[in-house]
Every structure is written in structure tokens, then in C-alpha cells.
């Protein structure tokens, strides 16, 4: 249409110098509905003249006039006037440039936060409401003068937890400061929800504006609602917010914190460098700073920070640069600063108990203490009861009816730009100082043990952690017993520590052997606690197969009382170490098999009792082998063979001679002491049927009278099968007169019984069984005050079909179950059962086990 018209027009009018397409132009014009840039919007609002006057003095004026995307928290004229009056500035022009620069930069945060997004943060690319409480500003302090190694020098903040990172684009990467924007969204979304008290305890002069308003920015309240602008948005605030201090800056500014800060800054009088505080120098940063500040005559710039505990209180960014995403907006570190008295109390009762002075305390222990005073997350006052410190320990000491923060004793608090600081009148407790392991960790006499733990048992699921289970980290029932091996004892044994290679050495074996022995010693000196009270479901006398005995939930474990005597075995008690080896004790005297053979006793002395157990010292180590007269270097550290102990049993207790004889013929190697199917590194419980039982078995044709491998292979195999069914593998079961099978699996629902595999594995093509282990159930039977150890065979079944029948099997009467014989042996200091061996125990039983293919 337009074209047609124009066409005719053109025929008559030839020249017309008019631009034709105004419509097109207007498409590219600025639309009239578009908001103006921040500066113009603020100007139009009218009550930000002083603020804008300040803006005009800074380079940020360009930004506000249209560049980038920012949210501005602009103080109104009233607020600005009040602030100037409080600082004694007559007008905006008289504010020092540095102050005005910082002030203006600190009113801005990067990005546009519309009202609905205030308090939100981008989590996995989605606005997530109520997770952020502070936002990144363009403000960060540049270099300043500070004392470095005794001299005044230029210092710049580190920007990562362990040092300083620069980018390929610029060697200077600022330690950007964050601005607390406390919104109802954040307060309500928090768990538990935060209250006005949480806010007001930090800002006593201000009141919480989150009930009807948009919340607060530090001490200021947001007035009214959002104002959008072309390059962002602005909110009016009723107070000027100066850049707030970082945790480190706060510690420096508050004299109450000086003692704690001194610990952070600790330096040996003789050393040139601090334990934790570092000053590093990076040439590219030097060069850059020289270029940026030609007038400052810079020679070197030191980058300041702390290392040794995860939180570097100088750094604004949460958890440093290493994280895949920046969640500084959402979190911060909380630091508890104990008062001088609290600090002294801790040092005296803990560290200085073992060390003459602080100088001798290892830096790692100081770091451990400091770390314990830090929480990895923000701890608002109302969150105190449920939060933990960096080690995952409850700040209040427990999470069962914990005390709140006021009761705990807080004398001051500060919301810093990178977290929260509480001044407290007691130090935060740590398991490193409050458990049986503390004795190992703190006492320099047990340095080798602590090294062994560090080398072999670190990690959250390791043994070390087990020793540190206590109410602080949520364990209430732990009661374990730790025997301490001093460095002197270990050295006497032949150990030494090679610091260069970070490994133990031993006088008479290689490093591999050294570590093996060290582990065995350490674990043999540890005894786990046990539960001695149960919810007993069945009547006294007989345990039913389907009747459960249940461990009491929350029941306190019992630590071993090595002073106790037994009513059986002549007063000897038997126990199995953490490493699964048997020992016996009586009147605080302990004997492992090696000690017995050497005829010595290990005497215990109680050192300390902790919430999670007891610690004893020993006058000599428990030995698993004879060490008095080493025949050779090699055998000195080696166990005796199982055959040795079987042979010894035959000699001292003829009652089991037929069994051992048969073992000798069928299982023993002709030229060594090795037994078929027995490994020296495994644990065994050997059931030795009496000669009577053996005769019964012979009559039942479970083994032939004469074994001739050449002539009667099936007879030999029969005998082997018969014998193998009596070697229970994997655990040493002592007859300890406890109501339970010890050590029991914490997973077991019925601690009074356990099922163990034998070394007999059935392969029968007809039954479709390949190498199927046969199993034996062991259980405790209460008889009066005694608990008898008994066994019966388990059948191998598939569904309701029995493939391999085990006898004696389960019967309610249980008369035919194998019972351990407690009588004294014919000769020697041994009994017919509970015959200790290396990693094994031998019991005489009144019956035999039989596994028959169906």
C-alpha cells in the first residue's frame, strides 16, 4: 500500500531529500518506559543529594550513571547527615577521599536484586530464596602499612584460605568485602528460623525490620520497597553502613581478643616466622603494585594470611577459591574467642600438663585447639545448640539438652564481613583433648603411639576416631580401654622412627615388618567395651532359636575391669584384644600368649578416666610371642604355629589325643608344622572333641580307622572333612563367662550368639554346591551365674531343602550341643579349654560336629 502510494508520488515528485524511515529509527531509540540509570533515578527521588555528592567524588559515579548491573543501598540524606555529624565532617567535601571511596563502593553489590530475590542466591543456576545473607561489593582494601618481621612494610590481604591466587588477567585479585543484607526471607528460611533477637543481639541500637519491611543492611533498615533502574535497582536505607570488619580485623580491634590473637600470631622467641601467620611475597604482585602506586615508593608487598586451620580470618571469600562454586553469600565462619581466663584454664589443664611451657607445645596442638574454636558455618545465636565446630563437635558439648549460647557464656559478639565472632568465657571443647586418645595425643611420652595412629589409623572411620568417640561428637555409650605403650618401651622393643621417610623402623626386621608389628602391638593394647545388660526375652536356661536377646539401646558400655577375678579357670579372666587375640588377666596382671610363655606378667597402672573409657600404662608390652630368647632374628617376632599348640594340648591333655593324632596324620605336612587349610595370618577357634567323642565318630564311620592316602583316597577325604569341620575360622572365641559373645558385631541383633565359618568347604556337583562353607553357631548358655560357651552345626539349605545336614543341629533341649570343657589339664598351667595360642584358642568339646551331604 505504502509502496503503491509512493510509486505515484515519485512519478510527479523527483527530488525529495527526506529520510524515509522514522519508524525504523524509533525502534532503536531508547524506549520511554525504560527506567533511568541508578544515578538519575536517585537524583529524581530527591532525598539522596548528600549520597550523590559523595558518589560524584568517586570513580563509581560512572558505574552509577549507567554501566554494569548493581544493586545500591543508598543512605538517605537524613542518614548521611547523621553519619557526618557523628564523624565530625562538616560537609561531604571534607570527608577524606579514602573514606568516601570505601563508603560509596560499599553501598553497591554486584548484580540486580529485585525485591523477590533479596536474600536469594543462585544455586545450581536457579534463584533459591532465603539462602544468602551477604552480598559481594566492589569494595576491598588495598595495601596498607603493617609490621612484618619487625619492620614496617606494605601489606595486602590474601584472598584464599592457604595463600593468594591471581588470575591470568591480573595479578591483583581483591579480597572483596561482603555486605550483610539480612532479609526476612533468610531469617524465615533458616533452620531453625531466626528471630528479631538474633538480629538485635548483634545490633543493639537497631531493631529488626523484617516483619513488615524488607529487612536490614547491617545496622541500617531498608526503607520502603525496591526502585528499579536501568542498570540495577536501589533500596533506601536509613543509616550509613561503613565497611564492616573481617573476623581478623575485629580480633585486632578488640583488646579482649588479644590473648587469643596472640595464639594465632604465635611465634617461637627463637624463630623468625610465626606458626600460622604468613607473609608471602609474589613478584608479579610487587610489579603490579609498583605500577599502580608509583607514588608510594613500593619495594615489596607482603601478602598476609593465616594457614594451619581451615579458616583464614583475613580472607573474605568463604572457604577460599578452591570451591567449585562461590557460596560466600550463603555462609561464613564463626570464631569463638575464649576470654583470657578461659584460655589460661585450658592451657593449664591440658597442654601445659605435659609441657613445661607453651614454646614446647607442638604447633599442631595449638592449631587443633584454635580449629576447635572455629565453626565451619555461620552460628547465629539461636543455632548454637545444634551447631558443631570445625571438627564436628557440638559447641555446647553435647546435643542432649545442650545449653543455649547465653548459658554457655557469651560476653560479646560481632557480625563480621566473613563470619561471626563470639567472645566466650569458656573454650569450645574438643575430642582431641577430652577422650582417651587425648592421652596419646598430648603426652609426649607416647609420641610413637600417636605417630602410629596418624600413620595407620587416621581418617574418620579409623581406629583413632573410635578412640575419640565421645558425647562431643555424638557418642554417649563408648567405654573402651586403652593401654599405653611408651616410646621407651617401644624403643626397647627395637622400634625407632624415621622422620625423613615418615615410617617406623625396627632393629630386627624391615620397615614392612616394623609397621606390621607396630600395628599388632597397638591394636593388641586396646579393648573395646561391651554391654553387659540386655533385654532378655527368653526364660532362664534355654535360648530359643527364634527368641531374641536384644542389646539395650543407649546402654553404656562397660570397660574392662582388669582387677576382676573369675569364678572359673582359677580366677583367670579371658579377653580378646581389638586385634582379635586372646589374653588372660587377674588382679591387674595381664598375660598374652608370649607373656605366658616367657613366664612374665604385665602390670597395669591406671592413668586417667575419660568420658569414653580408661587409660592404663603398662610396665611391659603384651607379647604375642616369646621374646626372651630369640632363636634367630626372624623367629623372635614370629608366632608359634597352631600345630605347636595342638601338639602341646595333646601332651598336656590326653583327652584330646585322638583328635590331634588324626590332625597330625591327615592335615599336617610331613616336613613342617603347617596344617592343611590353616593360614598363619588368620584367627581360629579349634574345637577338639574328646577321645570318647572321637571313638563315637569312628564308629559312625566319619573317618577310617587306618588312613592310607594311596589306597583309600575316599577314606582320607572323609577324615579331612571330619577334621575341617572343627576348625572355626576368623575369630577367637574365648570362654569368658560373659553373657555375650565377645567381641560381638555391633550389627548383630543377638549378641549372645554368632555364626562362624569352618575351614570345610563343600563342593558337590549333584547338589550344585561349589566351595560352600559350612558354618557353626556359637552361643552362650546361662547356667546359674555362669555362661557356658556352646556350639552346634548349621545345615546348608536351599529354601526348605537341606543340602548338607549339620549335626548336632539345633534342638530345643540342646543336650547334644558341643560344650566347652573348663577343667584343668593334666599337666602344665593350662586348662582343657581356653588354651591360648597365637591368634587362636583351643577348646575341648564333649561331642563332634558332622556335615553330611544329603
Amino acid at each position, binding site marked *: 500500500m505504502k509502496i503503491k502510494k509512493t510509486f505515484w508520488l515519485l*512519478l510527479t515528485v523527483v527530488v525529495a531529500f527526506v529520510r*524515509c524511515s522514522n519508524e525504523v529509527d524509533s*525502534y532503536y531509540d531508547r524506549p520511554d518506559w525504560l527506567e533511568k540509570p541508578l544515578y538519575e533515578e536517585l537524583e529524581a527521588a530527591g532525598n539522596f543529594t548528600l549520597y550523590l555528592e559523595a558518589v560524584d567524588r568517586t570513580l563509581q559515579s560512572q558505574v552509577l550513571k549507567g*554501566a554494569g548491573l548493581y544493586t545500591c543501598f543508598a543512605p538517605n540524606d537524613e542518614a548521611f547527615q547523621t553519619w557526618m555529624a557523628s564523624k565530625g565532617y562538616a560537609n561531604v567535601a571534607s570527608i577524606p577521599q579514602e573514606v568516601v571511596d570505601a563508603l560509596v563502593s560499599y553501598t553497591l553489590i554486584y*548484580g540486580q536484586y*529485585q525485591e523477590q530475590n533479596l536474600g536469594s542466591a543462585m544455586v545450581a543456576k536457579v534463584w533459591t530464596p532465603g539462602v544468602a545473607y551477604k552480598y559481594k561489593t566492589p569494595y576491598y582494601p588495598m595495601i596498607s602499612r603493617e609490621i612484618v618481621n619487625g619492620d614496617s612494610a606494605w601489606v595486602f590481604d590474601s584472598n584464599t584460605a592457604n595463600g593468594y591466587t591471581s588470575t591470568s*588477567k591480573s595479578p591483583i585479585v581483591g579480597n*572483596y568485602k561482603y555486605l550483610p543484607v539480612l532479609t526476612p526471607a533468610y531469617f524465615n528460611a533458616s533452620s531453625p528460623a531466626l528471630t528479631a533477637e538474633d538480629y538485635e543481639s548483634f545490633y543493639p541500637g537497631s531493631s529488626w525490620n523484617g516483619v513488615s519491611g524488607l529487612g536490614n543492611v547491617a545496622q541500617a533498615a531498608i526503607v520502603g520497597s525496591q526502585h528499579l533502574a536501568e542498570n540495577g535497582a536501589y533500596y533506601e536505607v536509613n543509616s550509613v553502613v561503613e565497611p564492616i570488619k573481617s573476623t581478623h580485623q575485629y580480633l585486632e580491634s578488640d583488646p579482649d581478643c588479644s590473648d587469643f590473637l596472640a595464639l594465632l600470631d604465635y611465634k617461637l622467641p627463637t624463630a623468625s616466622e610465626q606458626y600460622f601467620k604468613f607473609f608471602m611475597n609474589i613478584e608479579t604482585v610487587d610489579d*603490579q603494585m609498583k605500577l599502580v602506586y608509583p607514588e608510594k615508593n613500593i619495594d615489596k608487598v607482603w601478602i598476609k594470611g593465616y594457614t594451619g586451620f581451615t579458616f583464614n580470618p583475613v580472607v573474605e571469600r568463604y572457604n577460599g577459591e578452591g570451591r567449585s562454586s562461590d557460596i560466600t553469600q550463603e555462609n561464613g565462619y564463626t570464631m569463638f574467642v575464649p576470654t583470657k581466663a578461659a584460655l589460661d584454664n585450658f592451657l593449664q589443664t591440658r597442654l601445659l600438663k605435659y609441657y613445661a611451657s607453651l614454646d614446647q607445645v607442638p604447633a599442631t596442638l595449638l592449631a587443633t585447639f584454635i580449629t576447635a574454636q572455629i565453626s565451619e558455618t555461620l552460628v547465629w545465636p539461636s543455632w548454637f545448640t545444634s551447631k558443631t565446630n570445625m571438627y564436628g563437635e557440638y559447641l555446647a558439648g553435647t546435643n542432649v539438652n545442650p545449653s543455649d549460647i547465653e548459658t554457655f557464656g557469651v560476653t560479646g559478639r560481632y557480625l563480621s564481613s566473613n563470619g561471626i565472632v563470639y567472645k566466650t568465657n569458656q573454650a569450645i571443647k574438643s575430642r582431641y583433648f577430652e577422650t582417651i586418645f587425648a592421652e596419646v595425643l598430648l603426652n609426649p611420652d607416647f609420641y610413637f603411639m600417636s605417630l602410629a595412629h596418624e600413620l595407620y589409623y587416621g581418617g574418620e572411620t579409623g581406629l583413632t576416631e573410635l578412640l575419640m568417640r565421645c558425647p562431643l561428637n555424638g557418642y554417649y555409650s563408648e567405654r573402651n580401654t586403652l593401654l599405653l605403650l611408651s616410646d621407651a618401651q617401644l624403643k626397647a622393643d627395637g622400634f625407632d622412627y624415621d622422620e625423613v621417610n615418615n615410617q617406623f623402623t625396627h632393629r630386627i626386621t624391615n620397615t614392612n615388618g616394623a609397621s606390621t608389628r607396630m600395628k599388632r602391638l597397638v591394636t593388641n593394647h586396646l579393648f573395646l567395651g561391651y554391654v553387659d545388660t540386655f533385654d532378655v526375652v527368653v526364660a532362664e536356661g534355654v535360648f530359643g532359636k527364634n527368641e531374641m536377646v536384644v542389646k539395650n539401646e543407649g546402654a553404656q558400655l562397660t570397660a574392662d575391669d582388669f582387677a576382676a577375678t573369675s569364678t572359673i579357670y582359677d580366677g583367670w579372666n579371658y579377653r580378646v584384644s581389638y586385634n582379635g587375640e586372646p589374653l588372660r588377666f587377674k588382679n591387674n596382671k595381664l598375660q598374652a600368649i608370649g607373656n605366658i610363655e616367657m613366664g612374665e606378667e604385665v602390670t597395669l597402672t591406671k592413668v586417667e578416666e575419660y568420658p569414653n573409657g580408661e587409660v592404663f600404662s603398662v610396665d611391659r608390652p603384651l607379647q604375642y610371642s616369646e621374646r626372651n630368647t630369640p632363636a634367630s632374628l626372624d623367629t623372635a617376632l614370629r608366632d608359634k604355629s597352631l600345630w605347636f599348640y595342638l601338639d602341646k594340648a595333646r601332651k598336656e591333655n590326653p583327652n584330646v589325643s585322638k583328635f590331634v593324632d588324626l590332625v597330625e596324620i591327615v592335615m599336617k605336612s610331613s616336613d613342617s608344622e603347617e596344617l592343611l587349610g590353616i593360614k598363619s595370618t588368620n584367627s581360629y577357634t579349634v574345637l577338639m572333641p574328646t577321645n570318647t567323642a572321637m571313638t563315637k565318630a569312628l564308629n559312625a564311620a566319619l573317618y577310617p580307622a587306618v588312613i592310607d592316602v594311596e589306597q583309600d583316597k575316599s577314606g582320607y577325604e572323609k577324615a579331612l572333612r571330619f577334621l575341617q569341620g572343627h576348625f572355626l575360622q576368623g575369630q577367637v572365641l574365648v570362654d569368658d563367662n560373659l553373657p555375650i559373645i565377645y567381641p560381638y558385631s555391633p550389627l548383630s541383633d543377638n549378641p549372645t550368639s554368632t555364626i562362624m565359618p569352618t575351614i570345610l568347604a563343600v563342593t558337590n556337583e549333584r547338589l550344585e554346591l561349589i566351595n560352600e562353607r559350612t558354618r557353626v553357631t556359637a552361643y552362650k548358655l546361662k547356667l546359674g551365674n555362669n555362661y557356658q560357651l556352646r556350639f552346634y552345626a548349621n545345615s546348608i539349605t536351599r529354601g526348605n531343602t537341606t543340602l548338607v545336614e549339620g549335626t548336632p543341629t539345633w534342638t530345643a533341649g540342646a543336650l547334644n550341643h558341643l560344650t566347652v570343657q573348663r577343667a584343668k589339664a593334666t599337666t602344665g598351667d593350662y586348662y582343657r579349654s581356653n588354651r591360648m595360642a597365637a591368634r587362636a584358642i583351643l577348646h575341648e568339646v564333649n561331642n563332634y560336629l558332622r556335615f553330611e551331604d544329603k
Partner: protein
Amino acid sequence: MKQHSLILLCVLAFLMGATTQSLEAQQRLLVRGKVISNADKLPLPMAHVFEVDADGRILSTAVSDIDGNYSLLVASKENKLSSKYVGFKSKLIPIDGKSVVDIYLDEETIALQDAVVTASRVVTAGMMNIPERELTSSMVRLDTKEIAELSAASIDDAIQGRMAGVDVVASSGDPGAGMSIRIRGTTSINGSSEPLVVVDGVIYETTIGDFDFANATEQEYSQLLNIATEDIAEISVLKDAAATAIYGSKAANGVLQITTKRGNVGPPRVSYTYKGNFAKQPDPLPMLTGDQYTTLIIEQQLNAGIQMDMTTNPEFAYDTNNPYYYYNYGQNTNWIKEITQIGKTNDHSVSISGGTSKVRYRFSAGYWNQEGTTIGTDYSRISTRMNIDYNVSDKLRFSADVSYTHGDNHRNYVTSIRSRSYTKMPNQSVFEFTETGLPTSVYFTPQTNQQGTYSGNYNPVALAKEGQYRILSEKIIPKLQVQYRISPTWRYVLDVSFSVGNNKNNSFLPRVATGLDLASIYVNKSDESDSESFSTQTYNKLLWQPKLGEDYTLQVLLGTNTYSSEGRSYSAATSSSASSFLQDPISGYLSNSSSSSISSGSSQYRNMAVFTQFQYGMFDRYFINGTLRRDGSSKFGDNYRFGDFPSISARWRASSEPFLRGTSKWLTDLSVRASYGINGNEPNASYLQYSRYSTYGYAYLGTSGTSASNMQLSNLRWERSTQANIAGNLILFSGRINVDYDYYLKSTNDLLFNNLTLPSSSGFGSVGSMNVGKMDNIGWELNVQTTPVRSKDWTVNFNFNVSRSENFIRELSEYISTESGNWNANGSYLTRYIMDQPLGSFYGYRYKGVYLNEEQTIATDKSGNAIYTYDENNQYVPLYMKFGAGTATEYQFEAGDARYEDINNDGSIDEQDIVYIGDANPDFFGGFGPSVTWKRRWTLSAHFNFRYGNDVINGAKMSMESMYNYNNQSTAVLRRFRHSYETAEEVQAAPKDLLPRALHGTGYNWLGSDRFVEDGSFIRFRSLTLKYSFNPDKLRAYHLNGLSMWFTAQNLFVWTNYSGQDPEVSIGGLSIGRDGALAPRQKDYNLGVTVQF
């Protein structure tokens, strides 16, 4: 127009005669007399009288006065006098020592009878010269007088919109962007559809080395033609098969025939023309300032869920503590402005021509000097041409034409500087600021930033000024012709033509232009390449033109044609030279294999043909013409090496029939023409019929290897296009109204498709060329020339042409995917080849504005009700609109996203919602323009061209409003959605022209939709020329024969509803109808002077 030019010529001729007379009056003998008509004895005014010596050389001339009197100073009275007068036979009279010689001239009786008729010219139609009124084929002609004032470096620019059926389009308004010429539409899917160029009867080779004619820039095009517009006498376009079949295998896309000027009998005439031109880049698309840009970038990242980390993006941080970044990235740079300058062109040409009946000559030299509108670009050209015709005798005639052109072209190192300047981050500074924020004169060329590394993030100013790219070209074209008249009816013509071309390209990228690390392979990179081509063409033509009486005419032509060309090229490239002053590739720098290379290549091509043509006419009413050509080309294998291309055409002049005799007063001509013929087309590349091997660029164990590099195509065939044409000519009132109408049907078989992708199981990625299908072109053309006013003082001409062309795909090989583009990719339209539908339809989504709030993103059913469903938690929740639901690209729309019509109401925008949204083919296109002459002094002419009814994809808008990456965007994005409109009042009050929100690297806000498809109809005010010729009488005092001055303005304005920069977009190929232009075409203002001595 034609009449107008004739008059001008006469005037000029008269002036010439008069001035010559006034020259040199010394020592000469005066001869005077009268020129008289022998028939009625009346004096003949303004008759030319010449003194001719014994050799036939003209020594002096005079013109008779109003009473037929003349006076002439002669050198010798032994010489002869000759006189010429229009309509009379010229006569040679000996002076014989007399002082008074009256000259009686006899009327040319036959000529007089046919005075009107013979005024129509004889034109070169293919190989024969045929009177225009006897033409049986379709052909349009453009006299260069019409375009002489334009400052067109190339011819295509000059003919745009002036010929029916010829569509010339600049592929964009950006300078240096290519032009494409289409005669009767696109006939190829992706091959070249450019016409064959013939200069003075000789095929002008348009492939030098690997030069691709289809994608040539304007400059390259002109360099190729290398013919100064001053030297061109006439351009004609042969359109139908009957006209082009004689060119056989190369003429399927039509023929562009150029004739250069030659000398005329007469005294030496010196002519000097100057054309000065100022070219100004029109205002480009307004782009965001640096400040607005950073706002956009941070916002679009935020919308995409990325809170920009200012530590790693200091470019956007405005960190006041870091003045280096604050200043270097805190600017508002208008990059386009920084790289733009006013273009200037000076075009001088001087020619001398003249001749006697024995010898005619014309020598011309031109100097063209252009400074481009982008800094760092210029072009200068010296061109010379000499045309000499020598009549040895009546029987034997030689002519020799030699042209030589030297071109020197400086270009930008990369061609993308202008387009990159649009998208370059505007907050970046041109020059670097120091760490304390002080400006320097060093270019700011960061190694890397958000826009990547070189060649993604270069500083356009640095690269334009410091990067070097020079092309030196030489072209010599000698052409020799011998004509021998065996008998009055037999003539033999031999043409031999050579073409020697040499191009030397030299480029160098100094480190200062890129700021790259010294280890980079782009540092101090030098490239040099040489290519030379040599071609020989011969024509042997035997012409028989018997005299069959007045009522019958017959011409028969038999001829052969050979064509042979050879090209060689050599190139070398190295980088990391020690200094920016060492700019030649030197073997010592061959350190880095990825940037260094040496290569050479050669190719040879031959074509041979025999052809015959006849033209027979009866009673000036019936004409018939036939041609047959058999071609053989070295581009095909044995099976299909030869092709036959016949054509037949006829014309019936109804107006000469007896029953229309009575109308001759007003009906000058009424003819009907019909033609049918076959043309061919060859693939671009040679050697496709061979299985070739190429070497690896590396060695194994010190031995280099070879591999098969292409598939052998034994059965590759000619692309054959069969064309039928029906036309009518109508001339009224002695040519005051002249109407031509053509209707044609062109059917192309065995369509060639270049670089067809193959399944890799074949061992090859693609095949060079393949015959893949059939396409039809149907169309018509109307050309009207009128002279509404012709009076003593006033002459008004008005010309108008309009055409329509449609193409249809009829068959397509199964190897060609019938759909291209992705349904799930932003910026991409689906194009489909649908049988029997035009090539060039677009398919896409229907854009319905922007989701104003979250509620609007809930899917609705057919009746518009929101759809709710139970989720996995058994909650009753709304079903939100998704893109590509259930696919890997699934995306849930959010407030601010582009809203597309859910055609099938399934809650998912996907392939099934794609509909037909437009067609790139215009319903009509053409041009028109008046020209007005007043008192023969002032001439005002204007020219318009237009297209109507085509749709254009506004690609520029698409990319300039995508808000998807770090490219700068147009100010239209200020209209972007920034916050949602929740309440009913807010929704009501929401701006109607909201653009979707900025979304970095995600979302589907710029899918191919009708949002970017617009009506591309336009009328362009192509040119306006005002010319003034000085009164010759007054000029005489200054010894001048003629002086005229003119002013021309080009591309003054465009009337269109199209919102982009320029609706004129390239046609053809797969990217049909997509406009990526960021600026309208540049406006040129030319001032020209022609002086004749």
C-alpha cells in the same frame, strides 16, 4: 533516451567540425564552395567536408553553414575533398588546384525510404550481427550513456534494476560485500548461477585459480572484468536459450555481453573525463554503548543463572582499585565509527580516438583511485586499452585490441573487520591505558577476554591499521582479428585472443595488531601467494550472406571455437619472524607447522566446439533462426564429454502484414517471437572424472605418503537447461512507446550439486559435484520504454521494467537431504526442498511476544484453559510450557522468554509447531526511471528499482537482538524484558514492544520464527543524475569541443516496510532471503567532468 543521445552525438559532431576549422590558419590554401543536394539542388547545411590525402588520411575538416557554404584550409590542392551528409552518399572529389569546389551529393534513396527503419541498430546476437528488429531471441541492451555518470567500479552495479529479467542484488549493504547477478532466476541449488561474460565477442574467463565467481566481492568482480566503465559502449544481456545456445555449455545462466568503444572515422578526438566520488557510510545500526553493554552482559548471565564472578571477569568489574581494567574496559567505544572514514574515489580517464576509412583507432587510459570507507582499504587501478581496425583492402581487414590493467589493492587483513566491529565489546578501549589509568597511543589488544582470543577478540582499529593485505594484479588481453571477404557473399573471420593474468597477494600480520604472545602462530605471520593464468581462445567463422532479393535475407554461419586455459599458483606462509619489518615468508621461520605452509597448484582446462547458425528473413515479417553447437569439455569423462546444444527461434512481425498496413501511422512494430533451445552448464572444478591422489602433510619414517582424495566421477554429465520463450514486441508512435513482453519456461535437468556430503563409509566426506535433479523456472518480463514528451526544449523519457520468476524443484536425488537447519537451534530456520514448490520457502515457529509472568507460561488447551496435572508427589500442579519436552534439549519457559504458538496444544514447543512462514521469492521485481532534458543543456535522470512480494529473514535483527553471548547488540535490546508483570494492571500496562529477556547461552529466545520474517518489498531510489553540458559556442573561445559536468547521487533512499537495514538481499543458494546486513548500502555522491578537445 535513445533519441536524446543521438541528438547529443550530432551536436558533438558538429562542434568538432567547427573547431577543427578554426585551428591552424597559417600557410594553408583556402578552398571554399557549397554543398548541394544533387536531387533538388538545395544547399545542405551542417554537412561535413574533409580534405583527404592520397592515402585516404583526413587532414582537415569543415562544416557547411546554413546556406551550404563551406571554406576549408587545405594543405595541398592535389588532395581530394570528401563530404558526408546524413541521408546522402558520401563523395570524393579531387580539388585539382581549384579554389572553389562545389560538392553535389546524391541522396541515398534506399536509405531514405527506410530512414526510420535503419535507425534501428545492428546488434551482435551471439556470433552474428543481426538487425535488432529482426531479432528472434530475447535480448536486452543497455547503452552505457545511461550509466556513464554512475561511479560504478563494476558493471553489475551499473545494470542493477535497468533490465527486465535481470536481478542484481548486493548480498548486503556492507562495502565489499558481493553482488550476484541472476538472469531469469536461480537455476542451481548450490552451484554458480552467474551468467557468462563475453567481451567483444570473446568469452571472458571468470575463473582464475580458485577464484569463485559466485562469492566474489564487488571489488573482485571489477578486478576480474578490469574494464573501465568509460570504455564500455554497450552492455547487453542474452536471456533465452535461442540467444545463448551458441555459447553452448557455459550459457545456461544467460550471457552478459559487453562491447567496448572503438574508433570512428574522423579527426583525432581527445576526451577527458573525471569522476570524483565521496562515499559515506550511512548510519549503522545503533549499537549499545559500553555502559549499556556491560549492564546487558551481567544481566543476561544472571538470567541464565550465573552470578558473574568479578575476580575472573575484571573486564566487567569496574574495579576502581584496578585502574588498568577500570579504564581499559570502562569506555564507550563506537567501533564502527573508529574504523570508518569518508571514502573517496578519483577516476580519471582520457581517450583519443579517430581514424580514416583505412584505419580507425581508439586509445584510452584510465586511473582509478579509491579510498574505502573502512580504514586501511584502498584500490588503485591503471587501465589502458587500444583498439585498432585496419582495412588493408575491401577484402582484408585486421583489428587488434590490447588491454592492460594494473591493479593495486590494499585490504584489511581480515574481511570481517566491519562485521566484527559491530559485535566487538564496546567497553573496551581502542588505545591502552596504563596501570594508573593514563592514556597511551598503544593499541589495546588483550590476548584474551570474554570474546575469546585471536581471531575472535581482535581490536578492529589495530588490525585495520596495522594488518596488511595487498593484492597486485596485472591483466593483459590481446585480441587479434582477421576478416577476409572471400566473395561478396562469403566472409571468413578469425579471432585469436589471449588473456594473461597475474595476481600477487601479500599479507602480513604484525604483532602490534593482535597483541598476542610471541609464541602464538599468528605473530608476524606473513602470507604470500602468486597465481597466474593464461588462456587462449580462437574463433574460426565462415559467414555466408547471399543476396536473395529485397524480400529475403539469409545469414549462415559455420564456426569453431577453442578455449584453453592454464592456471598456476604458488603460496607460502610462515609466522614468528623476528621483526615486524621482516614481512616476507622465509624458510628460516618455518618453525611452526600449523602456521607455515608452502603449496602450489596448477590446473588446465580445455573446451572445443563447432557451431552453426542461420538467420532467415522473409518480407520483413517472418524470421527464423537456428543454432546448433557441439561442445567438448575437459571437465567430463569419456562417457559424457560432448554435448549438443540446439536452438530454434522465430519472429513474426504482424505489423508488416498487409492487413495492418493502415495502422502504420501509429503502430510502428508489432511482433511475436518464440524460441526453444538447450543450454548447458559445467561444474566449477576440473578433474572430477579422475581419481586423484594427494600427499599427506607429514611423513612416516621419513617417507611421505599419498591417499586417494576424491571419488572418480565417470558419469558426471552436463547440467542441461531447456528453455522455451514466447514474446511480443510492440512499438508505437515511431518508438515513443516501446513494449517488450517475454514469457519463458526453463527446465534444468541433471542439476549440478557441489560438495555433496557422502556417508563416510564411502571413504570420502563429499563428492565434488553431482547431477542430482530437475528444476523448472517459469517467468515473464515486461519492458516499457516511452518518450512522453519530445519538443524543442523538452525531452522526457520514462522507462519501466518488471519481471517475475518462479522456480520449482521437480526431482531430487535421494542423496540430498530435503531439510536443512535445526528445529531446536536458535538462529536457524528450517528450509525444505519440497517437490513442486519454490526453492526459498521458510519454515519456523510463530512468535507471540513475551511471557509477561510465570502464570502465562502455563500450557493451555485448545480452548485456552490452563492445563493442570498431578506430579509425582500427587500434587495438583500446573503444566508449564516447555521447549522440546522429553528431549535432551528440554527447557521450561520462564517469564520473559519468547512465546511461540503451540500449534498442536501439547504444551511443548517442538518440531510439530513449525509452520510455513514465508517465501523469499519476489512476486515482481524491476526498475523504472524518468529522464528529462531541457534545452539540450540540462539533463536530469533518476532511476529506481524495486521488488515486491518477497519475504526476508531479518538475520541482522536476529543476531543483534539475540542477547545470547558476548557480542554487542543493537539498541533495540533496550526494550528487553527486565522484570515480570504480575498484576492484571501491570500486564495491561506492559510495553507492547517488549523483547525477550537476555539469556546467556541458554533458552530459545531467538529461534527461527516469524518474528524475524518480514515483507521485503521495496522501492529504492537508485540514482539521481543532474548533468549540464556547456554551450559549445562559448567553449570555442577556450579551444574546447565539449564540456559537461554532472552530479550523481546513488542509493538516496528506500521505501519499504522492512525494519532491517536493507531489504535487498542476495538470492540463490541455500541462504536464500536472509539479510545479515548491519548497515544500509552506502550513499555515493559523484561529481564528474568530461572535457573534449
